């Protein structure tokens, strides 16, 4: 790019500082832009789900109930298998043992918690037995949780009776799945809610009126302690529409609103363990301590830096994992080569922190060392 092209490119960027009144005026001329416009939407971006989570440590959550059922973790493993296929995760990457590290649970149905909210605040409590009567029409319950310091995954069941959800997938759907919007909140001392993760719970199975969903988050905004709440909103599917020009668009079609929430107690589930660097690593003149968590690699700077500096490291550093058998696997966040094998699915950058999210849960014990931008990081 020569000087003139560079200047033109800069001018093009500076057009982004056009006053809002002019932008709005011009936008008003765009046909049907306010509700999808010429490019209709797909479902919410996965990257946002990871990106909203800024960068902080979170402990695992727990339901106050015993492991009464099986199958939740198998559904979670199945969901991870799907994600690994979508992201073309290399076979050599050691996967964390979800069934060993997650916890099968059967939470009371959402309404039961709402009615007996004291249950989860007691130091000692008896598991609440679940039976058909307690899992009524329209209710949800959790069936497993898989937690790390930086992620929270769960499986859940929905009793669809009375919700009017068609038995099969509606016309226009292609991926064969329903999704449920869910939000994870921390509860403050004053009961104030703070959202730390957003999920698209994906339908994995259906047995009569009972639908099983799996939800993944690859980053949480901050540490959980005390009470937490998961809310469940719309259930929807992706509808494909072909216009008269033969072009397809995708849209989110809501079929029902769940409108339920489950209160949880934190600290009962141990998160899968992380490993930490034995000493700070200096990457592009910034000193970081490093945490290798099964869900993410987190670099924490000694002090705040310009966001652009850390964003640049996030985007352009090659991340290399050396396995105990000597195999080296690598990926770069901003390498968008179609079909390439991915270790990283996303992440987030803050003023003092960079988080690379792995495309699946990794068995950190099988990692010998990590390199970021060519800098070797020894792990304890």
């Amino acid at each position: 790019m020569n000087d003139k092209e560079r200047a033109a490119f800069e001018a093009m960027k500076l057009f982004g500082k056009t006053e809002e009144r002019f932008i709005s005026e011009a936008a008003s001329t765009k046909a049907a832009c306010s509700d999808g416009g010429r490019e209709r939407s797909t479902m919410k971006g996965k990257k946002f789900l990871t990106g909203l989570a800024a960068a902080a440590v979170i402990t695992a959550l727990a339901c106050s109930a015993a492991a009464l059922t099986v199958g939740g973790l198998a559904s979670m493993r199945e969901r991870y298998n799907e994600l690994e296929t979508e992201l073309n995760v290399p076979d050599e990457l050691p996967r964390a043992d979800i069934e060993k590290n997650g916890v099968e649970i059967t939470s009371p149905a959402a309404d039961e918690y709402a009615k007996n909210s004291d249950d989860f605040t007691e130091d000692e409590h008896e598991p609440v037995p679940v039976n058909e009567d307690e899992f009524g029409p329209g209710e949800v319950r959790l069936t497993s949780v898989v937690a790390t310091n930086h992620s929270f995954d769960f499986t859940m069941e929905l009793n669809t009776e009375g919700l009017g959800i068609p038995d099969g997938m509606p016309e226009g759907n292609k991926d064969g799945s329903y999704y449920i919007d869910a939000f994870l909140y921390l509860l403050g001392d004053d009961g104030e809610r703070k959202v730390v993760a957003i999920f698209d719970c994906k339908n994995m199975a259906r047995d009569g009126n009972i639908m099983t969903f799996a939800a993944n988050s690859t980053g949480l905004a901050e540490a959980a302690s005390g009470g937490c709440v998961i809310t469940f909103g719309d259930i929807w599917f992706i509808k494909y529409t072909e216009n008269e020009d033969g072009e397809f668009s995708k849209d989110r079609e809501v079929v029902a609103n769940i409108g339920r929430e489950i209160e949880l107690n934190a600290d009962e589930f141990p998160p899968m363990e992380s490993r930490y660097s034995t000493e700070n690593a200096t990457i592009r003149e910034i000193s970081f301590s490093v945490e290798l968590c099964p869900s993410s690699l987190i670099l924490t700077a000694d002090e705040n830096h310009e966001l652009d500096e850390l964003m640049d490291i996030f985007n352009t550093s090659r991340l290399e994992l050396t396995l105990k058998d000597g195999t080296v696997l690598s990926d770069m966040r901003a390498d968008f080569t179609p079909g390439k094998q991915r270790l990283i699915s996303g992440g987030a950058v803050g003023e003092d922190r960079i988080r690379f999210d792995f495309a699946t849960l990794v068995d950190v014990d099988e990692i010998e060392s990590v390199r970021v931008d060519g800098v070797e990081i020894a792990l304890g």
Partner: protein
Amino acid sequence: MEDEKIVGMFFERDEQALCETEKKYRGLCLGIAKNILNSLSDAEECFSDTLMALWNAIPPERPSDLKAYVCRVERNIAMTRLDYLTAQKRARQCEVPIGEFEEILPDGFTEEALRRVEFEATLNGFLEKLAPEQRKVFLRRYFFFDPVAEIAEDMKMSESKVKSMLFRTRKKLRSYLTGKEHGL
């Protein structure tokens, strides 16, 4: 939902603000980013980043015009991505009209000159002087990067009229920038 209410929800840290923003502006934003990056998947990633940026920025910021604010954030994120892809020589298929921007700049105009003339303030002053129709067409092309055919369709003009209007406006801005012409 009214923008004011959505902004209020951001201030209350109500996650529904994100859903409402998505519902209302996703199509507009994907259009902007796709025009810049020529990739729907990249555009979707940009929109995700935009939602994250909004969540982080509001509060403390309180946009008086949410639609324009969202557009601006989306455009800036897409441009940053384009900048990166260009540096990596991975933006060959992007279709931003860089040649037309070159036409806007006087001969020998460099990045330093852009700073010297305080380009953004100069640009807004220039836009202020344009007739509304001219301004809308100009920004549809150079802020939203819309194809000429699409602008013509939306503005109920012929493509040749849009092209001609753009050509004349580029020429005016070029003159404005060189200081040869201060009134329109």
